[in-house]
């Protein structure tokens, strides 16, 4: 069911030395991650390509990582960050996206209400997520994409307990309110 990530062949050990073989090896799984995050074919493709362009620009750093697993984890982080960018662009481009368009698979049980209100709430939720500290953010984006702790841990090459603590600290931060409230000293 959620076999998007688990079940891929065991990562080879040495790092990829050239960007083309890295792209060929990771393209499909990162495409699936981008789609899980965004739910839109075109948007996911944009995020995917933007992520690889970013990797190209910092190639010495990526090539310098010790194992291919670390390169994978780094790429997942880049992809999740790009999906946030795309989300921002989508909100700008589609002035008033239907909720089901902004969040495909939308069902009326969204806790934020209906129609216009839900749409605005959803935007605020994503705004709050992009305001999270880096280390929380990527984990939360993957969690919001429906991945389980175990899957996220495997993707990022960290312990399951680390993922759990990031999600729970992010949840606390998010519960504290949207960024607008935070400035009024609610902390």
């Amino acid at each position: 069911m959620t076999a998007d990530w688990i079940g891929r062949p065991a990562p080879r050990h040495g790092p990829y030395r050239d960007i083309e073989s890295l792209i060929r090896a990771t393209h499909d799984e990162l495409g699936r991650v981008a789609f899980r995050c965004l739910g839109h074919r075109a948007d996911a493709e944009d995020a995917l390509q933007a992520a690889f362009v970013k990797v190209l620009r910092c190639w010495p750093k990526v090539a310098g990582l010790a194992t291919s697993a670390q390169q994978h984890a780094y790429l997942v982080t880049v992809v999740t960050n790009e999906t946030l960018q795309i989300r921002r662009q989508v909100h700008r481009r589609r002035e008033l996206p239907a909720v089901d368009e902004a969040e495909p698979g939308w069902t009326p049980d969204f806790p934020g209400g209906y129609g216009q209100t839900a749409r605005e709430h959803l935007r605020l939720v994503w705004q709050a997520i992009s305001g999270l500290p880096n280390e929380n953010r990527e984990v939360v984006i993957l969690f919001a994409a429906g991945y389980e702790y175990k899957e996220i841990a495997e993707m990022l090459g960290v312990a399951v307990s680390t993922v759990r603590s990031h999600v729970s600290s992010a949840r606390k931060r998010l519960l504290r309110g949207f960024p607008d409230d935070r400035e009024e000293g609610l902390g």
Partner: protein
Amino acid sequence: MNEPTPVRAGDALEWLHEQGKRRAGTAPEFDVEETLRKVRAVQDADAHALAAGRLAASSPQPLFRPPTRDDTVSRTSLRGHDFEPNPLAATTAAEFMAVLRDYRVWSGDPSWREMARRTGGVSHSTLYNAMNRDTLPSLRLVRAIVVGCGGNDNDLQEFSAAWQRIQENREGGFRLVRHAGEHIGQTP
């Protein structure tokens, strides 16, 4: 029921998680050749831009415009005392960077964006990153920082000379360093 319930982002997280799960296994195929084409195109464009940048850097009038009169700081302060940091006293990259940071404070602690504006072509983050390291930045960047602090030609010359000396010393062993140290120590 029609009243929208105030959503908290924390609740929404669970909701998004459920939504995301439904997308499992529905991802379309993405064309890897298309991605490779795009990445190669960017690579070519970057190479072009870099070549153009090199040309600009070696042209007689580099990126930076000379500081205007308003930008320059006063040479003396406190009845003729001048606390201007002296780059020529630095013998290592770390010392040089410390002097550069002092120089920025001395020149009135301009904001990074203000400095970037004065250089007319170097971004504030580049300046910030260069100055918060203890390794020697490129000469071009050092000159940009001095210009960004409103430095005059004399400052530029001194910082450039200090940079060159430290850069050469990196491989050249101790001789010049000791020489510079003695020179500074010879205060009668």
